[in-house]
């Protein structure tokens, strides 16, 4: 109903500048500050998410990953800074079909079957009905399509939530810890799916608090205490820090930051 349209003035000038300076970026965050409950959860966060990549957002629980993702989707009230997605202000009406979002807790109707859930979200998105079968296969829930979602395991319900975000092939996917608690085989399959979606031109931002998952990503954003510690490729990060794995690299960067602050 365009209720929100007025609160997102589109600065044509700024947009063109961003398009020119960040031609490959699907998401551009600049100087983002978010205050929740009187505390700055994000402070002066700037980053870019390159088009057609799987970017991992890694950091410990409580570091601000979810808040950053909420800001990119446009559901978070922000204190300052700008967030642009596909050249539009985050949350703009034009983005509602092109950004898929999965929250940490599965946000689907527990009292509907998998099929009924997906059929509803497909109708809201205006996606073809055939999309329901496609996304159910993509997340490997074909045999459970007529089961009531509340009777599924936590991991299965999380995949229903993921499937709903895949409806209509959105250009940008923001996935908050989609692989938590899943069996290693399933986790591998989902990361394969993410890579496949990126190969077909989608941009994925995937958060995790498990550092091992870094190796699955094309780009990495390491986060701690509401700040970005590193924005690099996995290889670049290991090379720069000389660390054997991402977890050690993370620790080194934290110590470095503490030394320079002292």
């Amino acid at each position, binding site marked *: *109903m365009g*209720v*929100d349209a007025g609160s997102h003035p589109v600065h044509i000038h700024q947009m063109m500048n961003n398009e020119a300076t960040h031609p490959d970026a699907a998401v551009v965050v600049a100087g983002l500050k978010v205050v*929740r409950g009187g505390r700055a959860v994000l402070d002066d966060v700037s980053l870019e998410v390159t088009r057609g990549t799987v970017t991992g957002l890694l950091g410990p629980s409580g570091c601000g990953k979810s808040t950053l993702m909420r800001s990119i*989707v*446009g*559901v*978070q*009230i922000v204190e300052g800074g700008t967030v642009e997605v596909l050249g539009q202000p985050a*949350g703009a*009406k034009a983005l*509602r*079909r092109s*950004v898929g*979002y999965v*929250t940490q*807790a*599965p*946000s*689907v*109707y*527990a*009292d*509907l*079957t998998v099929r*009924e859930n997906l*059929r*509803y*979200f497909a*109708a*809201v*998105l*205006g996606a073809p009905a055939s999309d329901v079968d496609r996304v159910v296969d993509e997340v490997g829930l074909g045999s459970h399509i007529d089961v*009531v979602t509340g009777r599924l395991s936590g991991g299965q319900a999380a995949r229903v939530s993921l499937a*709903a975000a895949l409806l209509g092939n959105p250009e940008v996917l923001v996935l908050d810890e989609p692989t938590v608690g899943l069996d290693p085989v399933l986790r591998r399959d989902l990361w394969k799916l993410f890579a496949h979606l990126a190969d077909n031109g989608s941009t994925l931002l995937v958060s995790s608090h498990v550092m091992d998952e870094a190796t699955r990503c094309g780009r990495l954003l390491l986060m701690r205490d509401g700040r970005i510690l590193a924005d690099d490729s996995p290889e670049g990060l290991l090379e720069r820090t000389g660390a054997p794995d991402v977890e050690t690299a993370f620790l080194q960067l934290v110590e470095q930051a503490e030394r320079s602050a002292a």
Partner: protein
Amino acid sequence: MNPAVTLATARRVLGQLRHDHRTLAMLIVVPCVLLSLLAWIFDGTRTFDSLGAPLLGIFPFVVMFLVTSVATLRERTSGTLERLLTMPIGKLDLLVGYALAFGLVAVVQATVAALLAVTLLGLDITGPFWFLLLVAVLDALLGMALGLFVSAFAATEFQAVQFMPAFVLPQFLLCGLLVPRDRMDDVLRAISDVLPLSYAVDAMRDLSTSEGIAAEAWGDLSVVGAAIVLALGLGAATLRRRTP
């Protein structure tokens, strides 16, 4: 607004009810049991005739208030509301979708209860039957709209359920069912004048006292209609695409 999305929402809400057999059964059976009990208590007196019709309007109001406040709270806490509001759905699509689904349930509920009341229980209704259904549906929508609005102020289902006695019982006490409104103290009368349930009950009472549809009944109904629109507007204002 997008009719396809509105209808999909209504179908989804009905689908949720369809999976919940016990709720569905209680929606239909409980008003019938209560009406039968009432008819039995006042067996052999004229009291049932004056209470029966207003109660046919009060049941859908109370039930839809409860069902909607819990359903909306669930949408908020499960994250489905946040997900929907990142999608191309208008707030009106959501509200009208809910209204269509619960309105349909109210029609079934009121039809069954009213048929039972006028046949087996011997309730005298002089006005037309369709008007009784119309009032019952509007009462249900009023309960739904108020439930949707107050659910924004509940953080837990415990709180949401408590809003029933807080918002519904005072309206019940003051609607003129226990003591006629013109015999109330001036202060109470004034309060009763601004509570929407009073007009819903007045409209139902007109049905049992006058033949055809009295002009006052249409007046009462338009007050109920205005209250529904107002409450839905307030409810829409509590649906926020951005939250702290």
